[in-house]
């Protein structure tokens, strides 16, 4: 198992102390202990840059957008639409009109299941993998039950990698219209070989959607280089606000797809008899959007970009390698998943201690991790587990925090055995 990341400049160094200063919450205490926050994969903490940009928007320059002719509205529209440019740049999307704002990744995938799904015919198939988050499974089940399409599941290997032969075989009959797959597993840490997945899908006549909820946080994303047709991510894991996510899709696809939600801002003209739709991306953004949150997402992207993914990836690779080494020394602990390429997420179990007890006891010591099925029940079943404990790392995570985790796990284990 390697802890490879796509970084090329391993010398790009993060000043973790300086970064931590920008996250007020990291100075909080929990049960009288300094907070050790190892749950960023569930949702990341927010830097001052994001908090301040949202507060300052509401203090100094806010109004509803698009339909207003007055100064506050025009300036707020510019700020909102400016984030579309930023996101397009962030993903290296060919054009800003291909960026649709949603509430989160979940809504982005539902939008595709609904609007792209409306173009599918019974007998066509959608292909996912065994390691999907419920967000990339349930919408397709609902589409299957609604539209009579087939839902196929590509297996993973025992190490937690996509089984590429089985994947290729599932595409062989040419019935798969869309491959919808995670770009990084939130349980196993697996970074999937997206480019290869896309090439194989395209060769079989299928389009491909990547759920980038976990992966955009850890390395530079280039939807053109990946050969993606759809890409989704969620703001709150990228050090940004809640309530804002992104769907990127190729222009021709967005243009063909019927709208998802109806209402203000997504129309061109409306009569009681019929309505016509606005151009993309507005066709997919009904009603007053999450204006302040979009602006906050822009601040998060600016902030992350300034730090740079070379430095971030190098830092997280180091943390992950350190975690794997240190956790290996905890008696009774097993790492869940040994993928070829991984991001800063490590799941584990401990003999004789249930993950929920681990999480609660760590919490009593100020350490926040996650335990449960991580919204990936079918993956748990594949692994023969009912739950795992999961530590996940972010820009602000320090090696010393991983040491505290490992030491506390040893004491928890002693307590139970």
């Amino acid at each position, binding site marked *: 198992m390697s802890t490879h990341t796509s970084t090329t400049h391993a010398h790009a160094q993060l000043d973790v102390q300086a970064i931590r200063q920008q996250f007020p919450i990291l100075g909080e205490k929990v*049960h009288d202990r300094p907070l050790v926050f190892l749950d960023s994969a569930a949702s990341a903490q927010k830097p001052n840059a994001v908090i301040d940009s949202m507060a300052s928007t509401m203090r100094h320059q806010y109004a509803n957008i698009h339909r207003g002719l007055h100064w506050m509205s025009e300036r707020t529209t510019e700020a909102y639409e400016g984030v579309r440019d930023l996101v397009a740049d962030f993903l290296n999307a060919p054009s800003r009109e291909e960026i649709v704002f949603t509430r989160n990744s979940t809504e982005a995938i539902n939008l595709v299941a609904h609007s792209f799904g409306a173009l599918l015919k019974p007998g066509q198939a959608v292909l996912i993998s065994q390691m999907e988050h419920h967000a990339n499974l349930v919408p397709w089940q609902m589409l299957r039950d609604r539209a009579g399409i087939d839902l196929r599941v590509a297996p993973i290997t025992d190490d937690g990698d996509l089984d590429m032969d089985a994947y290729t075989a599932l595409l062989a009959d040419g019935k798969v219209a869309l491959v919808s797959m995670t770009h990084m597993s939130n349980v196993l840490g697996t970074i999937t070989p997206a480019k290869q997945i896309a090439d194989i899908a395209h060769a079989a006549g299928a389009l491909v959607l990547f759920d980038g909820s976990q992966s955009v946080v850890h390395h530079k994303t280039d939807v053109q280089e990946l050969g993606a047709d759809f890409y989704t991510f969620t703001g709150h894991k990228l050090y940004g606000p809640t309530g804002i996510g992104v769907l990127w899709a190729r222009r021709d696809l967005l243009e063909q797809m019927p709208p998802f939600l109806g209402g203000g801002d997504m129309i061109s003209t409306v009569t009681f008899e019929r309505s016509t739709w606005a151009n993309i991306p507005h066709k997919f953004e009904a009603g007053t959007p999450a204006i302040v949150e979009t602006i906050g997402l822009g601040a998060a992207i600016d902030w992350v970009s300034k730090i740079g993914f070379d430095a971030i990836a190098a830092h997280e690779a180091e943390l992950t390698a350190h975690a794997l080494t240190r956790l290996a020394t905890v008696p009774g602990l097993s790492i869940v998943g040994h993928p070829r390429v991984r991001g800063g997420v490590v799941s584990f179990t401990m003999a*004789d*201690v*249930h*993950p*929920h*007890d681990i999480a*609660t*006891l760590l*919490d*009593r*010591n100020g350490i926040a991790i996650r*335990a*449960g*099925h991580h919204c990936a*029940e079918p993956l*748990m079943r594949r692994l023969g*587990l*009912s*739950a795992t404990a999961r530590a996940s790392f972010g820009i602000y995570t320090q090696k010393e925090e991983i040491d505290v985790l490992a030491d*506390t796990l040893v*004491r*928890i284990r*002693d*307590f*139970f055995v």
Partner: protein
Amino acid sequence: MNTTAERDALYDRLIVERARAPLYAGRLSAPDVQGDGRNPLCGDKTHLDIVLNGHHIQDIRHNTRGCAICAAAADLMAEHVRGNTVAQALAVSDRFRAMLVGSPSLPVVEAQPVPLGALEVFAPLQSHKARIRCAELPWIALKEAFSHVDG
């Protein structure tokens, strides 16, 4: 593990011991009623076999797979309700739940106070709301078992 143990009234020695070496685990060969509890969120599961003698719980065994809180709750529940009438057991169940959620609606003076005894080790769950369902699961199974029995 001094510091962790000291810091953690929640994981009382009794809970850890009963989770590791339960006294009422197992099955009964001819149960009068049975009950099941399952929490899909964490995979906790418990099964109860109960032998009744009139209105009294003559014997009870549990078969539990889950976290320490759930396993110990099942074992301490079995210990507590053995010999109770069904009505008494259900009253304990209500009292136990009220303790966990820190219910302000709990009558301050009860006509017949229902003692919880060893079950009070679970009181610290009040500040770990997400774990309350772990301790409640066996009691949900108990209610299910009694759902067709007159108190």
